């Protein structure tokens, strides 16, 4: 399947042409993506993730059946669309992958250091939390994004995430907003959604976790945030840290009300 994708890309020179936001090239890519998503390689990771969720594993030889993703122990359906959210047992807001990592540590006995050592996919390795997040996300396909803001710490996470979004620092003075704070801009040929606008904020959530055609690997929002900070010339954000959950709270709440289509395909 990967070979077929690569060939399809090579045969699609319009992907490399200059693209305007909302322009014909971007529209063509959306059509291309819609076709591919009917047979999305992400499904392979969903299947793997389901197996990892269900089977007894780790030092404690336990499954994740007792993992509470916010809707009660073991409830996966609809959970992803309602994350990040506040969890009383840790007294903080967690995004989906942070919560999965938390469950792998508390229920299965894995160590954070082990999981955080190489948390992102490469050509040769897909970390377990990535596959599990893909499985969990797929069980929210077709549901409305509804990250809660009822708890004071959920509202505080949103407010802190908003500040992080606009926080310019480092040698290039970049913030998230440098690229994602205004309408109709692009970097090189890549159109940039304005995440401060509800109608576009959904593009921070939609398609993630995503099968990335560049490199042919499965990536989650944890990876996307990490790579954005790398390009911002910032130091590295801690994997599954509260800081990343706060930023994701800001982005996701801005996208509330939109339908989540499930794991997707990214350029």
């Amino acid at each position: 399947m990967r070979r077929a994708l690569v060939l399809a890309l090579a045969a699609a020179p319009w992907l490399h042409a200059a693209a305007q936001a909302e322009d014909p090239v971007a529209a063509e890519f959306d059509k291309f993506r819609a076709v591919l998503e009917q047979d999305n390689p992400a499904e392979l990771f969903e299947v793997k993730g389901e197996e990892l969720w269900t089977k007894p594993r780790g030092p404690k030889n336990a499954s994740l059946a007792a993992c509470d993703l916010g809707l009660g122990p073991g409830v996966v359906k609809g959970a992803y669309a309602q994350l990040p959210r506040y969890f009383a047992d840790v007294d903080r807001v967690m995004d989906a992958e942070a919560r999965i990592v938390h469950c792998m540590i508390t229920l299965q006995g894995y160590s954070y250091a082990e999981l955080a050592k190489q948390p992102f996919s490469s050509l040769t390795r897909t970390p377990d939390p990535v596959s599990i997040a893909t499985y969990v996300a797929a069980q929210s396909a077709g549901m409305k994004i509804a990250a809660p803001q009822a708890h004071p710490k959920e509202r505080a996470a949103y407010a802190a995430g908003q500040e992080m979004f606009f926080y310019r620092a480092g040698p290039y003075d970049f913030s998230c907003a440098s690229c994602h704070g205004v309408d109709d801009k692009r970097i090189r040929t890549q159109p940039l959604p304005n995440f401060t606008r509800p109608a576009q904020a959904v593009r921070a959530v939609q398609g993630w976790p995503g099968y990335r055609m560049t490199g042919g690997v499965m990536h989650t929002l944890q990876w996307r945030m990490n790579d954005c900070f790398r390009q911002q010339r910032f130091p590295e954000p801690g994997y599954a840290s509260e800081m990343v959950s706060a930023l994701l709270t800001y982005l996701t709440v801005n996208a509330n009300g939109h339908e989540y289509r499930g794991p997707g395909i990214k350029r």
Partner: protein
Amino acid sequence: MRPAAIAVLAAAALAAACAGLQSDPRADARALMQRDFHAKGSAGMDRLKEDPVQSACNAHRDNPPQALAEKLQQEQMAAIKWPADGKLLGDWKSGEKIAQDGRGMAWTDKGGVGGSCYNCHRIGPATTSFGTIGPSLHHFGKLRGYGAEMQRYAYGRIYNAKAYNLCTQMPRFGHAGALSEQQMKDLTALLMDPASPVNQ
């Protein structure tokens, strides 16, 4: 300050600390980032620290009070180091390569730093994969003239765009030590040399 006032302030600070993520969002954000980021490669934790320009832009969502903006802009302008030899135009061919090169200063980058110019600007006519965050620089000199003042403006703007527009999105390539004097001269030539393809 009277001891009573100090006690009140201390109590308020303690209450804020106990509230965790419920006090001042900007303080919360900075505390979380300070705790949850770590240095990697060339990207040290010092990069999270705001300088006065970043702080003014961050605190006021890129729209600081005019008096503050003017004061900071003047300071930024005064800190520009102009080439000692007085020459501002280097080699536009080298400038074109620097403009294309988007690498440098990320934790994955080793070695040289490019200007990343095409990421945000239309510049030379041959490159269609240009970004649009910044204005088009095509025909830069041709439209504005090739005089000494315009050369100085181009060089200064590359060295420190914040000296001209405090909260512009453009990095301060000279001020930050990202680009060398020669690189900035070459970029100035790309924009200002009448022979540069930018001006054809």
